[in-house]
């Protein structure tokens, strides 16, 4: 139980240290800031090693199980696990200036792979689906506004033509829709942010000080 109180108190002190930044930068904030950078960097290194490298590379290649039992290879041939392992290791070539260029191989695969995913799936998810959603019969004011707003916004994004004449009018309509949309998003967000603050105040007042419910 006292164990729990110590951890809660640590959490509370760190919480207050961060809030002190609102007044101005100070040693408490600096301490909390540097601490969380170090701890979180370590956290992700450990988590990714255990979640990806150990099960997908280390175990199949070395048939290594931390508790000492050898695990079956689950249909994954060991060399299929070796390739990404080697690619990963090639990243470290940059530590040796002479071989640094080899480090571009895995980067090429990595960048290319994700760029490829940014092609055809995007056509469906971002473009066709939105076109479909906006193919509305002009039978209500809402639909007319949705169609006009979409076309206006699209025209606003035309880069290779001057926004003049009819184009200019539509681009202007586009801006109007964008601004109303942004205002709405802003107003809508306030709530989320306050929720977080309420969460922290709840932690300080209830979990730590036991002042309320």
């Amino acid at each position, binding site marked *: 139980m006292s164990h729990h109180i110590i951890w809660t108190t640590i*959490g509370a002190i760190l919480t207050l240290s961060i809030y002190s930044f609102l007044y101005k930068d100070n040693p408490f904030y600096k301490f909390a800031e540097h601490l969380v950078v170090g701890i979180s960097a*370590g956290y992700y290194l*450990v988590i990714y090693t255990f979640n990806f490298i150990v099960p997908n590379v280390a175990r199949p290649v070395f048939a290594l199980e931390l508790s000492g039992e050898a695990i079956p290879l689950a249909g994954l041939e060991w060399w299929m696990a070796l390739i990404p392992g080697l690619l990963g290791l090639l990243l470290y070539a940059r530590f040796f200036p002479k071989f640094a260029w080899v480090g571009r191989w895995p980067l090429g695969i*990595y960048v290319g792979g994700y760029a490829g995913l940014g092609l055809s799936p995007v056509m469906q998810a971002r473009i066709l689906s939105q076109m479909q959603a906006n193919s509305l019969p002009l039978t209500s004011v809402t639909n007319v506004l949705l169609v006009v707003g979409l076309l206006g916004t699209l025209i606003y994004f035309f880069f290779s033509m001057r926004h003049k004449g009819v184009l200019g009018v539509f681009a202007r309509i586009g801006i109007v829709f964008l601004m109303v949309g942004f205002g*709405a998003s802003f107003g809508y967000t306030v709530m989320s942010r306050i929720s977080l603050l309420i969460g922290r105040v709840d932690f300080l007042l209830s979990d730590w000080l036991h002042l309320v419910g």
Partner: protein
Amino acid sequence: MRRQLPLTLCFIAGVFMAVQYFIPHWRVQDTYDRFLIWLQIIFAFAFLLGTVSLVKVHFHKIRNRAADRGYSWVVLAGLASMIGLGFFAPGHNDPGSPFDMMFQNVQVPIEATMFSLLAFYIASAAFRAFRARTLEATLLLIAACIVMLGRVPVGDLISERIPEATRWILTVPNLAAKRGIMIGVGLGMMATALKIVLGIERAWMGGGD
């Protein structure tokens, strides 16, 4: 070899990922699944690169006797403790382990508090920047105020129209604008991705020839 091979690898990986979308055959889809895991593995290996970078920066600060070098020790201590606990302490990263306790009781509260600073900043930003200078700015601030009221119970108390107006703003002008942005962004993404795959844009490998 130094530039051509990474570009070729990039091209092959990119074309495969773009084309697999149209090929449901299990041979292709299994390869795709495996390739995705490969990418994640490469990513996991990169964490050591990042960690080395972080250590190097702070090591240099300490060595150069920089003004705030005391805090560099804090970074290194935090990092070392998590790596030590995660790899060598009993329980590793299991729930309830010392590693997990550090995460839950140090990292989580600090991050949650950083996040909650937004409540303060959103107020100061609104006060500072929401001025009815132009038509666009006025529309933005009016929409923001209506939606702000419409999202909380007090809005319902003032007028039933406010939640209605909020819903209308969110589902009509807001939606139209979002769809326009989404389509534009989709095109931008595709163009950027295509230029990377085709090797037209090479900034990612230091650019050039």
